[in-house]
C-alpha cells in the first residue's frame, strides 16, 4: 500500500473535489429576501480559503464502501454548513474574540454581531434541511438519513463541539486533551462516519471510521500546534486557546502526533480489501502529519 500511496496524487484529488463541493455549496445557499442574512451565511460558508476537509472526508469514506458521490454530496455540504456556523459563533467577541478567520475579516466584523449570531442559527438547520431535501432517496434509505442527522446533531451539540469550545474558554489547562478531541476530532470523526453510514457500511466498519476520523482530526490539530510553536520561535504568530505544545511541550506533542498517525493507519488495515479506494484515506493521515502542500485559497 505504501508504494501506491506515494503515487496517488492527493493534491489533485483534493483540489478537484473542492471545486465540486464549492459549486454544490454555492447552489445550496441561494440568496432571497431578506438578502442580508443569506449574504452573511454565504460569506463564511463559501469562503474560498476553506480546505473543505469535512466534506472531502465524508465523500471519500462513502466511496470506500462503494457508495456513489451523489449520495454523499448533500451531507458533505451540510457538514460544511454546520462547520461554518460553529466558526462564526466561536469568533464572536464574547467567545474567542477573533477578528480574522482564514485570512479574512470574521463574520461579525463584516455583518455585525447580531447578524453573525443569526447566520449561525440559520446555517445549522439549513444543513439538516439540505440533507433531507437533496439526498437521493432511491439510493439512500430513510433510516440512513436519520442516522446521519443524529450523528451531525450530536457532533455539533453539548457533548461534542460545543463542549470543546466551552472548555477552551473556561476550562483549565489540563482540559487540553478533551478540547482537542471535541473541538477538532469530533467533526473529522463525524464526517468519516456519515460517509460510511450513507454507503451502508456495517457497525464494525463504522466504529473503525469513528476511531480513524477522530485520530486524523486530532493529529491535524496537534501538528498545527507544533508548526505554530515553531513559527513562534521565529518570532511572529501569537497563540490563542489551549494547545498540546503549551501544556505538554514540543517533544511530547511530537510523540503524541506519531501515536495518532499510527493509530489512524491501523484502523485502515482491515479496509485494504476494498482495494485502491482506501488510498485517499491513508493519504489524509500523511497529509495531517506532514503537510506536504497547501490547499484552499
Amino acid at each position, binding site marked *: 500500500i505504501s508504494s501506491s500511496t506515494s503515487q496517488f496524487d492527493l493534491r489533485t484529488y483534493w483540489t478537484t473535489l473542492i471545486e465540486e463541493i464549492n459549486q454544490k455549496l454555492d447552489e445550496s445557499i441561494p440568496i*432571497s*429576501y*431578506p438578502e*442580508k*442574512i*443569506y449574504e452573511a*451565511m454565504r460569506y463564511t460558508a463559501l469562503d474560498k480559503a476553506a480546505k473543505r476537509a469535512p466534506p472531502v472526508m465524508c465523500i471519500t469514506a462513502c466511496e470506500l464502501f462503494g457508495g456513489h458521490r451523489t449520495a454523499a454530496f448533500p451531507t458533505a455540504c451540510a457538514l460544511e454548513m454546520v462547520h461554518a*456556523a*460553529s466558526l462564526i*459563533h466561536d469568533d*464572536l467577541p*464574547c*467567545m474567542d474574540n477573533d477578528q480574522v478567520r482564514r485570512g479574512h475579516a470574521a463574520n461579525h466584523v463584516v455583518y*455585525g*454581531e*447580531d*447578524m453573525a*449570531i*443569526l447566520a*449561525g*442559527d*440559520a446555517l*445549522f*438547520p*439549513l*444543513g*439538516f*434541511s439540505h440533507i*433531507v*431535501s437533496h439526498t437521493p432517496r432511491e439510493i439512500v*434509505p*430513510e*433510516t440512513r*438519513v*436519520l442516522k446521519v*442527522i*443524529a450523528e451531525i*446533531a*450530536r457532533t*455539533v*451539540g*453539548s*457533548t461534542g463541539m*460545543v*463542549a470543546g*469550545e*466551552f*472548555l477552551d*474558554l*473556561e*476550562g483549565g489547562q489540563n482540559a487540553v486533551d478533551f478540547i482537542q478531541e471535541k473541538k477538532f476530532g469530533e467533526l473529522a470523526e463525524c464526517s468519516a462516519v456519515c460517509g460510511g453510514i450513507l454507503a451502508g457500511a456495517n457497525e464494525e466498519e463504522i466504529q473503525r471510521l469513528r476511531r480513524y476520523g477522530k485520530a486524523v482530526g486530532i493529529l491535524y490539530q496537534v501538528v498545527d500546534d507544533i508548526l505554530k510553536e515553531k513559527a513562534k520561535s521565529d518570532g511572529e504568530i501569537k497563540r490563542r486557546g489551549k494547545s498540546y505544545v503549551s501544556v505538554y511541550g514540543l517533544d511530547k506533542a511530537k510523540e503524541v502526533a506519531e501515536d495518532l498517525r499510527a493509530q489512524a493507519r491501523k484502523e485502515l488495515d482491515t479496509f485494504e480489501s476494498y482495494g485502491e479506494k482506501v488510498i485517499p484515506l491513508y493519504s489524509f493521515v500523511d497529509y495531517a502529519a506532514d503537510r506536504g502542500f497547501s490547499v484552499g485559497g
Partner: protein
Amino acid sequence: TTNTTTGATTFNFEEYMIGKAKSVHKALDMAVTVKHPEKIHEAMRYSLLAGGKRVRPVLCIAACELVGGDESTAMAAACAVEMIHTMSLIHDDLPCMDNDDLRRGKPTNHKVFGEDVAVLAGDSLLAFAFEHLVAATPTGEVSPEKIVRAIGELARVIGAEGLVAGQVVDIDSEGAVDVDLEQLEFIHIHKTAKLLEGSVVLGAILGGGSDEEVEKLRKFATGVGLLFQVVDDILDVTKSSEELGKTAGKDLVADKVTFPKLMGIEKSREYAGKLIKDAKEQLKEFDQEKAKPLIALADYIAYRQN
C-alpha cells in the same frame, strides 16, 4: 376559565393545558440531563425548564391527537419545538440582540451564565432538538419516512426562510419610519407563526395525518400565529401594566411598529376577528370532538386578557 360547551361533553381547556404542560415539562426534564460539561447543560435546563405556557408543544400534541396519534407519538417533536423556541429566546436576549436582562421575571440566561455560555447553550438546544426528534420518536409507531419529513419541516421553519428571516427583518425595521403592513406581517409570520406552524405540522405528520389534513392544519397554525401577535399589539395599547404582568405601552415607547399603529385599534380588532374565524374554518372537516383542544387554543390566543 374557558369552558367550551359544544355538543354533549364539556371541554375544560385550563385542565387540558395544565395537564399537557406538565407532561411536556416532565419529558423535557428527562430529555436534557446534566452531564459533562455541567455548566452548559445547566444553562440549557435553566431556560428550558423555566416554565411558560408551553403553547408550541401543546399545539404539536393536540394536532397529533386530532389526526389519530397519541401524546407519546408527538412528545419528542413537542420537546424539540420547545427547545428551538427556548434557543431563540436565549439568543434574542443577548446584549448584541435585544439586550434583555429579564425573561419571565427571572434573569436571562447570559446574566446568569455569561454570554459565551448563553450562545453555546442556544446552539446546543438547537442541535439537540434534532437529535432528540430522531432518537425519541417511537419508531414502532412512526415510519422513518415520516420522521425524515418532520425534520425537513422543522429545519425549514426555523432557518433563514423562517424564524431567522423574521428576526432579521425585525432588526432592520427598528426605528424605521416607513414600515408598512406587508413588512409587519412578514415579521410576525416568520418570527412567531412559522414555529407555531412547525409545531402543528410536525404533530400532524407524526400522528399520521393525510397531506390534505397537514395542509389544513398548516393554514390553521399560520393564522393563529399571526393572530397571537395582533392580539399582543392590541393588549399593549389597551391594558395596564398590572393587568398584563409586564410593562404596558412598551411598543409605543420603543417606537415599534404595531398593528394598532398602522390600522387603528378598531381595524386591528376586526382583523383579529377575521383571523380567528379563518383559522377555525380550517378545522371544520375534522372530528369536532377531537378538534376541541385546537379550537380552545385558538380562542385562548384570541380572547386572552394578558
